[in-house]
């Protein structure tokens, strides 16, 4: 099992109706920490799906566990970035 949930940095977004906080963590193969930033470029690809999520009135996404790198591509990331 090559997986843990080390959390390194915290980002807080405030929107009109809710407070969203994203904790990003990464542990590389050597066990040394590195930081990962959310790639804004990935968002437009997911925007359409996230908008559909909004129209479906969902507030969160459940799926197989992603890594920090996988989060960037995830629907949950798109929801969070769009402040939905």
């Amino acid at each position, binding site marked *: 099992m090559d997986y843990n949930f080390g959390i390194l940095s915290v980002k*807080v977004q405030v929107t009109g109706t809710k407070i969203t906080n994203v904790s990003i963590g990464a*542990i590389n193969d050597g066990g040394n920490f590195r930081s990962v930033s959310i790639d804004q470029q990935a968002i437009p690809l997911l925007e359409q799906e996230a908008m*559909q999520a909004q129209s479906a009135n969902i507030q969160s996404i*459940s*799926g197989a566990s992603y890594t920090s790198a996988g989060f960037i591509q995830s*629907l949950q990331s798109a929801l969070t970035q769009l402040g939905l």
Partner: protein
Amino acid sequence: MGTVVTFDVYPGEFSDEDLLRESIESAVTILHDADDVFSTWKSESPLSRLRRGEIELDQAPLVVREVLDLCEVARSLSNGWFDPWSIPGGVDPTGLVKGWAAQRALEELHRHAIDGAIVNAAGDVASFGGPNGSSKFRVGIVNPAKPQTLACIVQSPGAVATSGEYERGQHLYDPFARTLATRSASATVVGPKLGLADALATALVIGGRDVLGAIVELQGYEGLIIEPDGSMRMTPAFPLVR
């Protein structure tokens, strides 16, 4: 590899935003502390030392016993399909501990007068309340064949956990076949608490339909599997919205 935990807090009419921010920080600390104790990556974590036989269980922090006791419960309820003791390299509660820690983080937020909150730990979701104080949260379930789309939507009873190998590749250990293997493409378990739901989702994706039968027997927990061919199968009271 690390992951990402997302917090969504829906303040109520009387919420104090500064207090809420402090509470979120406390919740994040709960996750850090759990990682420090249970990490199998950190060679000096209490769990790593326990796995190497350097310390006994009664020398580890009390939470280690709490988590391993819950693992025992999950192993029994899943008819052995969730079995941290079968994994080569020593006892590994990873399949439960992330959900357990997220549930604890949520309980920190629950101390405040807010409409609702969600802690999403890498796709395992613990919540209470709802977006406007009356309704429940609705959670999308990722389509394992096309992870940027949804397979369905559920109404959360508090915990929604999903297991699969489409994000990180093969990593789930079948305790009966004694090899890395899963029968389903994705499995979701909903219920009151995320620790047990997380463990049961792991059991369900590994064991497939056989485990669905065990979950039917559990009061408060419901399961859904999505097969490699895209077909879905669920327990009778699974809270599917569509």
